[in-house]
């Protein structure tokens, strides 16, 4: 066969305009989105339905919560709203700068698509605009999901006129665009001018921002326990929060604009306030557009330079010797168990070197720790504190379940492409599955038990209840690891190389659903008897000695342990059986 020659097509190519480039990317985005949606409807209906259902539930719960909160705050101090909005939006602004910067770093420089685009005759500013839209969408959906129930509740409580609701989306979008573009500009500048320092600089900046936020929260809320929720406490908190009310900040333009849009004059007219709201919206939109222009100029000058700087990076050399911990882990114990321990060391190394895994782990558990550390500022009644302790236990379990689903469930599937390595080693397949289970169980148990202990200590919970929570925590860690590893081995996807895609498939979704049900079941069977015990205690029915209420608590704990054993060993049994028969 002789290839067809293009000789007939003289001057096939020509430089295209910016608007043509934008049109091509728009078509590309449309094609990709529709193809993804079609596939999702065909293969992941369960996941899609769950996402919609859970989002609706989340939205509804937040709306209810904010409605109550605004009704309460509104009756106390009207100016509180302005302070709260400013504090909320300014913190969000800092987070949006970093989250969009990180997303754009990946989109502009490290993905295969970035490399493809850099070899095509397309302007850097158009590539920036294309990837910015993607990062903007990812950054803003969280804000819209969180902000829309809050602001809708505010509008309803304040009996806002209809333009308030119509202006919500434009306000939110214009606001998000400002920190998002700033994040993009910072990212490009950092990559171009400090390629070696970028990780350190990013870590330092992120650490400083987190510290500033923690400091702000601490400054705002720290006060002696007895004064909490008093008038003086509120006054002190508001005075400290007023630092966020800076007129040059987009968060102030947003807060003021929204408050104006929701306000009616004493005679019921809205025109003057609406005009003021539109003025704030115009300030937000014009600044967002101006920053976009700056961003495009920066991209035109720095994008290709930065991409080149990154390609020039020298890969980090690892130490030839094992770290002391890996050495200890691989040598401690019997020779028979050494292959199992070596498999765990391998997974541990991969985890340590994958920044996306441990950074998410650290951020989520860190934030949870911060929250638990601060629960002490409110005084709780005995029984109420116990219930909050159970809720915190459930939250720890739910966070852990997202990690086991996202990172542990795909582990067996990811061995698919490396199966020839493991298949030729003198280890049996059961050991591979058990090593994943132990890795997940041991890795989860330490931070989770510490967090539960922190929460209970801060709540001033009695020692016997702390012990009960800790047992439940161990049960949750074992069960969640068993579910993720067992189902991962039962339903592996050996062709897929992306862990996020494996986790978002049917098996991953099923693992998440079963994990959530398991957490709810364990917490309920232990929390209900404890609640009944406290109720009995209040009525003077609990005397000294071993009472019926105590027997109920013990029975609840036994049921939780039984559930834990079932959740651990049944999926593992099914997984082991399937994995032994697996033909890669």
């Amino acid at each position, binding site marked *: 066969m002789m290839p067809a020659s293009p000789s007939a097509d003289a001057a096939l*190519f020509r430089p295209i305009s910016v608007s*043509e480039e934008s049109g091509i990317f728009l078509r590309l985005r449309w094609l990709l989105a529709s193809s993804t949606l079609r596939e999702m409807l065909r293969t992941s209906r369960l996941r899609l339905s769950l996402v919609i259902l859970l989002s609706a539930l989340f939205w509804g719960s937040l709306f209810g919560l904010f409605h109550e909160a605004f009704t309460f705050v509104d009756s106390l101090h009207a100016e509180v709203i302005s302070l709260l909005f400013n504090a909320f939006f300014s913190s969000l602004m800092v987070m949006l700068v970093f989250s969009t910067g990180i997303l754009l770093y990946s989109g502009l420089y490290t993905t295969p698509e970035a490399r493809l685009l850099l*070899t095509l005759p397309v302007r850097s500013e158009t590539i920036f605009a294309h990837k910015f839209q993607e990062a903007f969408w990812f950054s803003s959906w969280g804000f819209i999901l969180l902000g829309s129930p809050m602001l809708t509740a505010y509008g309803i409580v304040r009996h806002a006129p209809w333009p308030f609701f119509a202006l919500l989306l434009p306000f939110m979008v214009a606001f998000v665009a400002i920190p998002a573009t700033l994040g993009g500009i910072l990212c490009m500048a950092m990559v171009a001018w400090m390629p070696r320092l970028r990780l350190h600089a990013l870590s330092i900046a992120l650490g400083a921002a987190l510290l500033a936020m923690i400091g702000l929260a601490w400054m705002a809320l720290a006060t002696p326990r007895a004064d909490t929720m008093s008038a003086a406490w509120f006054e002190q908190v508001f005075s400290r929060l007023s630092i966020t009310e800076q007129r040059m900040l987009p968060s102030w333009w947003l807060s003021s604009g929204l408050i104006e849009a929701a306000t009616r004059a004493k005679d019921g007219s809205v025109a003057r306030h609406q005009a003021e709201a539109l003025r704030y919206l115009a300030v937000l939109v014009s600044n967002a557009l101006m920053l976009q222009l700056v961003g495009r100029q920066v991209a035109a000058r720095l994008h290709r330079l930065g991409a080149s700087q990154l390609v020039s990076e*020298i890969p980090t050399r690892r130490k030839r010797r094992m770290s002391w911990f890996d050495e200890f882990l691989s040598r401690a114990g019997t020779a028979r168990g050494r292959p199992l321990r070596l498999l765990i060391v391998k997974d541990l190394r991969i985890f340590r070197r994958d920044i996306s895994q441990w950074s998410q782990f650290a951020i989520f558990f860190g934030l949870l720790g911060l929250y638990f550390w601060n629960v002490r500022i409110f005084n709780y009644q005995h029984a109420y504190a116990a219930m909050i302790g159970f809720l915190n236990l459930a939250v720890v379990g739910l966070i852990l379940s997202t990690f086991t689903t996202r990172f542990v469930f795909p582990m067996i599937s990811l061995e698919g492409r490396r199966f020839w390595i493991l298949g030729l080693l003198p280890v049996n397949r059961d050991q591979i599955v058990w090593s994943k289970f132990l890795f997940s169980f041991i890795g989860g148990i330490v931070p989770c038990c510490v967090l539960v202990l922190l929460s209970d200590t801060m709540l001033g919970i009695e020692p016997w209840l702390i012990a009960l929570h800790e047992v439940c925590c161990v049960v949750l860690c074992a069960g969640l690891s068993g579910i993720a590893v067992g189902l991962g081995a039962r339903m592996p996807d050996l062709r897929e190389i992306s862990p996020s895609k494996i986790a978002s498939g049917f098996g991953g979704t099923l693992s998440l659903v079963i994990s959530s049900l398991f957490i709810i079941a364990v917490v309920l069977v232990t929390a209900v008897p404890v609640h009944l015990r406290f109720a009995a205690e209040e009525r003077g029915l609990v005397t000294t000695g071993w009472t019926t209420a105590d027997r109920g608590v013990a029975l609840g704990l036994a049921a939780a342990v039984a559930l834990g054993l079932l959740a651990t060993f049944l999926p593992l049994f099914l997984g082991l059986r399937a994995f032994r028969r697996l033909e890669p």
Partner: protein
Amino acid sequence: MIAFEGVTRSYGEKIAVAGLDLTIPRGELFALLGPNGAGKTTTIKMLVGLLRPSRGSVCVAGHDLVRDPRAAHLHLGYVPDEPCLYEKLTGREFLWFIADMFGMSKAAAERRIEAEIANFELGEFADDLAESYSLGMRQRLVFASSLLHDPDVLVLDEPMVGLDPRSVRIVKDLLRERTRSGMTVFMSTHTLAMAEELADRVGIMVRGRLRFLGTVADLRARATGQGTGGPAVGADPQSLEQLYLDITSADGAGAPP
């Protein structure tokens, strides 16, 4: 058509490419050979604009890759060693995306897409999503996309990886035909036999420096020792391989180009 002028590229202390001066005229197929870590990939990355030289300049069709990358890219087609596609696009949609990027008219794009689909025998799977493609299918699609706009310069990084013998034959025929009609091809490869079969000129790079530059006939002559004063070892494939190994060995005393 391609001009490297005093190009040096370093990674920190390490010099990956040192003082490369190389001009490749229109219609030539140039093969760059060398062991792993010789600087081939760095050279290719500079040629396609993914990496800027520390010193010197790289020009394609008279356009500097640093100062005017868009103009240079209009004349370039690139087949990387790891093909990148949009997984959620079909092969045909991907070809349309590339054709649009090069500003091809609708009629020309349609004609060229159909022609390349036929050339690379993509018809059977052109309307399937790229995520279902094997490595060979991906590589063929990337070849098709790089040739759509009939570039003046085609850059190939290990082009035969993942291709079956039939596809290799298609690519070889196509490269011969296109170079005859004026296309310049810059190819990096590990395979001496392929360079020998296809290349007009060969460059052998070792530790960032061109140790040999000449035609395959020159290389063959050196292998037989004619006119070089070197050892007369015969012109069979083994001797070429031995010469290549001598030139690329760590302490090899390859003559300067």
